[in-house]
């Protein structure tokens, strides 16, 4: 009997349904956390590579558990999940669709990571004004900073360019 296994595209589409535990409007693939899905002919198993967003991000363990659960749910028993640090994660890997979703969710999406945070001036996700100011370099999670809008006066989270 010839063993069959799903295609890597299928696996990518399953992983795309796993929400980030802290920003549930984004999937872990939207964020660029999943770096690689490969079939390893020699080991006869799938290799899934993930990378942490921030070094201390406590969500990574939860994400790894979710991936394992998802693979087993689809009857894939032969896989190896590894964490890779380099190249270091950057918000540049975030898809345009993800940035759009963040905006709609009320979190200003990250500008390009090469732009300094002061210069970036995220646009207010509530009213669209670019007259915004930094309140604190850190917000409710390591990946966000706290801003306030000078036009509509609403505070908001902005995803830090990283």
């Amino acid at each position, binding site marked *: 009997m010839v063993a069959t296994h799903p295609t890597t595209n299928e696996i990518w589409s399953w992983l795309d349904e796993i929400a980030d535990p802290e920003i549930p409007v984004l999937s872990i693939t939207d964020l660029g956390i999943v770096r690689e899905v490969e079939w390893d002919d020699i080991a006869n198993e799938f290799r899934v590579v993930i990378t942490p967003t921030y*070094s*201390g*991000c406590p969500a990574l363990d939860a994400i790894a558990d979710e991936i394992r659960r998802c693979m087993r749910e689809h009857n894939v028993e032969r896989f190896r999940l590894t964490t890779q640090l*380099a190249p270091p994660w950057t918000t540049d890997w975030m898809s345009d669709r993800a940035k759009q979703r963040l905006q709609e969710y009320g979190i200003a999406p990250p500008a390009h990571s090469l732009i300094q*945070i002061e210069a970036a001036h995220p646009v207010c996700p509530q009213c669209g004004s670019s007259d915004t100011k930094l309140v604190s370099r*850190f917000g409710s999670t390591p990946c966000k900073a706290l801003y306030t809008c000078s036009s509509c006066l609403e505070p908001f989270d902005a995803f830090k360019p990283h």
Partner: protein
Amino acid sequence: MPVPVLFEYLLRLGDNCLILSQRLSEWCGHGPVLEEDIALTNVALDLLGHARFWLSYAGEVEDEGRDEDKLAFLRDAGEFRNVLLVEQPNGDYAMTITRQFYFDTWHFHLLKELQASSDLRVSEIAQKAVKEATYHLERSTDWVIRLGDGTDESHARMQRAADDLWQYTGELFETDEVDREMLASGLGVDLEKLQPPWMEHVQKTFAEATLTVPPGKWMQRGGKRGIHTERLGYLLAEMQFLQRAYLGAQW
């Protein structure tokens, strides 16, 4: 590379991050304003992440069955290799910010250099950590300027903190046998070379903050060799209590 030397080097890198992270975590729920409470604990979280990377690697290199948790929770003060600066108590906000500023300036330059390490794992950890260290440095620099060039009270407190902590900055650049061996192998960095850019940033920032760079030349040392101030013991007592009382306890 002889294992004990690399192990020792990795402990130093990891312990600096772990102990400073623990100190910053003491602010959790006590910050002067909510945003600062969140910021300090976020910096602590980044540093804890760095500590995990370094100590996991140290445990693998040692190969005696000690993982990151065993290294963090089951060593006594004399086995810790952090510099004295990071174990100093939080004090007032000026002390916390100044300690962070001295450390961040050094940490940023250290990680920048370590990216070029001949050891792939060291280089990868440095590449990851330097992005966060850059952000930490921007933040602590801002605060030094804001508080130094603030009210009479904040200025006086910042100058006192800058003076009191100055004696712990020399150790950051102190080079011993371990450092020399790691440098010779291409794995480590030349700590003495980090001093001029460190000093340049401190001088520039203090000038803007209307603070005086302390003139003191006499420096405390010993942390890198496991000779600590009595303050580390109290910190460890709190940090390690659970694993000491309930060995192997899982969350």
